């Protein structure tokens, strides 16, 4: 490290800047990771409150609390806030904290750009939130923003679109930064095929991000010019076609759902071996399966459009291509199970959430397969069945794994141990209530209840009430997580945590070789021993 640049030396001498300004100007990967994670947690509660409005309105048939327009704004904003404000930023936060420490790098490759991505995200989300207070209300077209409906949005339309642009740029910058970090900053000896799975999955996710976010930006720009400059991309009167929007959107949208699930896979593959006290089963097949899923995600988009009137050849192609995804996904589920097989398992909170993820994500995968069957999807499409499908793949999968990640790494980040009893309570309340919340939605969908409606026929009343009760319990249980995070930051159980925190974790990944909490700057000299237990 003779050729250290002066600018870097500065940092090294000072440590973090003093006061609040530290958080505004920081370029330190740990600080930015913390910012992302806390912001995501806040947005999780904002988006969650919107879900509570939805479930309150659906508690009984008839109109109870909100008008239909606002109800539809809630479904739209709930999805946008959760996807772009909570789940994606939470994983970017984990990437910031963990990737440099896992590959033995001193920081992210592009620290200033890192700061910019975070603040663009904040600006984007604030702009989006501001649409709630505009004339005509927030967008109410569903998160897919389909024309012509979305073009009927009031004053909010251009603001919503600009906010999508900002969020897109923020994600693209993160993606570029992560790729550059992983390609150029690895410690000597950290070959690609020795990288922890979390790093692998983020590398692939970052490529997805830079490939799809520009396409989404293009699609919403077309909406904007259609509305204000009569370009008629999607306007039949001018020779356009609204179905075209759906194709462009889902070319983005399907890989987008994998942006939320691939890092989830990565964290699960990191946690399960530690608590099973075994190496990950089939490391290289995990890498290839992840790459295969990412590739396939680009060629299956029209399974969201089986009912638009595609020719039979198209229906068949998208049906079989979609079913193909089940193969690499099955490989992963098999490998997680095989990792646990005959392991010396213990069931601390992170492991509980991870096991629930394996089981419940698989449920979501199964309903996905059902909907991949084109003729059957005519029944499921746009009903509560699909709502149940993607909530199983997102809540007890992505969100549970984010919780698991929180419990797993909080002791590392803060140097304090969380309260295991409250963690277990949080888990059991969550896992029961999430099923009470979403499982009945399968029945509602099969019986024909459409999604995105504020009122429904009385035949759907019972399951909706049960689902709402599950929703309220789930929502309230998450306050326990908030409590634990704050409590752990403040000192937790007071128990001293070791560098390793979890038994033998240092054999799996480099971050456990650092003290807990790690110093502000780590791996300014690269590590010499690369752990290989995870392979």
């Amino acid at each position, binding site marked *: 490290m003779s050729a250290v640049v002066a600018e870097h030396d500065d940092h090294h001498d000072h440590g973090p800047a003093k006061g609040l300004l530290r958080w505004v100007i920081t370029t330190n990967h740990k600080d930015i990771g913390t910012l992302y994670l806390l912001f995501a947690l806040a947005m999780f509660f904002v988006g969650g409150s919107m879900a509570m409005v939805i479930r309150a309105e659906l508690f009984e048939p008839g109109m109870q609390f909100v008008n239909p327009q606002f109800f539809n704004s809630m479904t739209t904003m709930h999805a946008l806030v959760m996807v772009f404000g909570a789940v994606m930023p939470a994983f970017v936060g984990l990437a910031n904290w963990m990737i440099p420490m896992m590959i033995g790098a001193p920081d992210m490759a592009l620290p200033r750009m890192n700061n910019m991505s975070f603040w663009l995200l904040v600006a984007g989300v604030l702009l989006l939130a501001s649409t709630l207070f505009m004339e005509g209300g927030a967008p109410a077209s569903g998160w897919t923003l389909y024309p012509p409906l979305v073009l009927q949005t009031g004053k909010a339309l251009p603001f919503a679109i600009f906010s999508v642009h900002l969020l897109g740029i923020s994600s693209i910058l993160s993606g570029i930064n992560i790729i*550059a970090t992983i390609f150029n*900053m690895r410690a000597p000896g950290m070959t690609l095929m020795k990288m922890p799975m979390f790093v692998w999955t983020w590398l692939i996710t970052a490529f997805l991000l*830079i490939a799809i976010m*520009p*396409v989404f930006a*293009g699609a919403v720009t077309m909406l904007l010019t259609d509305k204000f400059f009569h370009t008629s991309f999607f306007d039949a*009167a001018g020779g356009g*076609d609204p179905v075209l929007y759906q194709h462009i959107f889902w070319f983005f949208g399907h890989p987008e759902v994998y942006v939320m699930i691939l890092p989830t896979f990565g964290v699960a593959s990191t946690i399960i071996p530690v608590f099973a006290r075994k190496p990950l089963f089939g490391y290289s097949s995990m890498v290839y399966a992840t790459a295969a899923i990412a590739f396939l995600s680009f060629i299956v988009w029209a399974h969201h459009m089986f009912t638009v009137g595609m*020719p039979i050849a198209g229906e068949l192609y998208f049906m079989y291509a979609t079913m193909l995804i089940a193969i690499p996904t099955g490989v992963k589920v098999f490998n997680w199970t095989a990792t646990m097989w005959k392991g010396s398992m213990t069931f601390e909170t992170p492991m509980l959430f991870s096991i629930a993820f394996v089981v419940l994500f698989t449920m979501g995968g199964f309903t996905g397969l059902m909907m991949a069957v084109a003729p059957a999807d005519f029944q499921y499409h746009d009903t509560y069945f699909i709502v149940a499908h993607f909530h199983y793949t997102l809540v007890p999968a992505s969100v549970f794994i984010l919780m698991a990640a929180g419990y797993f790494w909080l002791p590392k980040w803060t140097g304090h141990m969380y309260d295991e009893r409250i963690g277990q309570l949080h888990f059991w309340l969550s896992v029961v209530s999430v099923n009470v919340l979403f499982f009945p939605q399968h029945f509602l969908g099969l019986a024909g209840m459409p999604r995105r409606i504020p009122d429904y026929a009385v035949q759907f009343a019972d399951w909706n009430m049960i689902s709402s009760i599950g929703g309220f319990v789930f929502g309230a249980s998450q306050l326990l997580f908030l409590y634990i995070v704050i409590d752990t930051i403040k000192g937790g159980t007071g128990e001293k945590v070791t560098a390793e925190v979890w038994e033998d974790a240092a054999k799996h990944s480099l971050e456990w070789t650092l003290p807990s909490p790690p110093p502000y700057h780590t791996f300014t000299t690269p590590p010499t021993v690369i752990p290989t237990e995870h392979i």
Partner: protein
Amino acid sequence: MNESVKQKNAKLVRILVFVVLGMFGFGYALVPLYDVLCEVTGLNGKVEPSAVKEVSYVVDKNREITVEFMTALNEATPMVFRSEIKKIKVHPGEYYTVNFYAENKTDKVMVARAIPSISPGAVAEFFKKTECFCFSEQTFKAREGRTMPVRFVVNPEIPKEYKTITLAYTFFDNTETSVK
């Protein structure tokens, strides 16, 4: 961070920015791609937007296909719009003319455009129009009503399983957007 890593980063960033720009362009490239695909294959019930030359086919007197006509107005279009007949039985290969009536209900000049759609989508390529009011924008004087013909033929090569074709038109009010 040493200089060689900085250079490697800069180079990689340039490549990745290029990918990003390329993908933004790709989004737009999907537009013509989609149109070409739809026109070539007739997906989506999209029909040729201009008249085809009248060629004569061997008329298949043994087959009868029902052609139904549907008319619709886009939400806010202040017009009357109907077809003179609701359906007609046709022999593949023979030419037919059907009249449509459209009327401007406002006191101002109106420019309107009828957008056709054929279902099932797969028959679009066999349904040929030699004359149609839908090929261009129509200008109506205040309160003007007009009868407009559509002349069409069903190509006798149309697969046997098709017995009914629906031709639907939607009129859109383009007065504000059309450049005069």
